């Protein structure tokens, strides 16, 4: 029986650094379980002869030659950064006090 538990949703939320309230966890756990259940029905239809698909196009080996193309300037690269310092992206503290 596929599905997702409330604990699993809480775990995923933590991995994605999403702060969910208890009632949100209840709400999303129910919804996600429904969605997974719906998607799981695909595997009831697909037989052994149908290979899993990760890409809708029947393409392989799309490669580019190892040739340099222009990059953005540092100013352009940093233009969307909420904060910057020393021409670098500035991010909040990564590890809290331990």
């Amino acid at each position: 029986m596929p599905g997702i538990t409330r604990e699993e949703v809480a775990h995923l939320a933590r991995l994605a650094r999403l702060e969910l309230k208890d009632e949100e966890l209840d709400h999303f756990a129910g919804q996600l379980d429904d969605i997974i259940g719906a998607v799981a029905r695909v595997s009831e239809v697909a037989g052994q002869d149908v290979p899993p698909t990760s890409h809708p196009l029947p393409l392989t080996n799309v490669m580019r030659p190892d040739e340099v193309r222009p990059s953005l300037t540092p100013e352009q690269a940093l233009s969307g950064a909420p904060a910057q310092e020393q021409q670098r992206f500035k991010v909040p503290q990564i590890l809290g006090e331990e």
Partner: protein
Amino acid sequence: MTVTDLVPYEDALAAYDPVMGLEVHVELGTKTKMFCGCATTLGAEPNAQTCPTCLGLPGSLPVVNATGVESAIKIGLALNCTIADWCRFARKNYFYPDMPKNFQTSQYDEPIAFDGYLDVQLEDGEVFRVHIERAHMEEDTGKSTHIGGATGRIHGARHSLLDYNRAGIPLIEIVTKPIVGAGERAPEVAKAYVAELRELIKALGVSEARMEMGQMRCDVNLSLMPKGTEEFGTRSETKNVNSLRSVERAARFEIQRHAAVLSSGGKIVQETRHFHEDDGSTTPGRIKEEAEDYRYFPEPDLVPVAPSREWVEELRAGLPELPRVRRNRLREEWGVSELDMQAILNAGAVDLIVATTDAGADAASARKWWMGELARRANEDGVELGALPITPEQVARVAALVADGSLNDKLARQVIEGVLAGEGDPDTVVEKRGLKVVSDEGALGTAVDEAIAANAAIADKIRGGKVAAAGALVGAVMKATRGQADAARVRELILEKLGVEG
């Protein structure tokens, strides 16, 4: 800071068998990144080599670097791996700002190369086969600078700064199968494996594999099992061990640490550990179980890589002679022992000696100069042998001057000294310093006569049959000619003049 308990190495090995796994990341030397056309030039100013793709901006799409795939296949083939006929990339999701996409494009259950081996030779010549689990393609992360903490550490930092120039540079991760049965030689095997892998990568021309530049990085996974049992213990993963010596030290330290924990009834915690170059110890990092939830899934923005068998065979046919095979061939050609060859390898002299013999010197003199005078100088100056300001061609020229009798060894050393001091090529140094063997028989004869006259007692001994005493007179003549005489010829002249058979 707590002191880590250690058990003496011999005691640890008497009670336990070590099991190792080595993960090596190699940064490829491609001109561009793995999934976009940004340059990979070292030393660029911060964030000058980024684009919407490697910054993970919405709407951008990656396309894989053909040379990156080719390099991965070459490495796989050189490691005797099977090359996948179809494989995909996968997203490795994690929450850390060194990847602006919030995932690393990697490969998960479909590596491009798998099931191989690498034979490594230990210092005494014993060959140990290390089995390879897989080699897969992925990308490097950006560079973080932590601000506000002690000595740039992430702990205690107020905030961090990110330079994404390195984010997206192609990496090949090479993972061994568990290495069992190496016993007390496990640390030595680890070092020899990484050394051999580095030689291999360099020979393939896919990376310079300079560990001090971070172009090759090693994680050492280690566990112990009580002797006589076969179930692996819990492992620790020591990250970013970045020199050959450190690989050996890290393995040794972990063996001693694990043994101390286990023999006192404790349990090994599965965790990543940091290696400290200064004292060779490791300290705990994050607990692994929390971090390992990467939620891999197939990368929908990249299509599968399906290398044709023709391409794979073409690359196989173009592989260079493998380093160990080449070293053994050269060892036989040069007529040196395993131990001498190991010393030559450790000194970084193999290619220099080859280049010197290519320039016309015989192997014995090429080896003599590089492993003698020049190795000594490199050691004194604290530089790599290849970084000395003398070329193999110049060394070959010195050897040629010795061979034709223009220089003796003492003068040759002065010529080399002159070349290293920037006085020009060997012939210029000979000319400028006036370093020529005195071959004027008249002048040499006079010097010999004077030496005999000044050392009558020794001369008598020689006349009386003590030929060995001639050395003292040879020394006197060499001194008088300031070393510029051919010692063998001087000895001949002395014996001749004293009427003694040599």
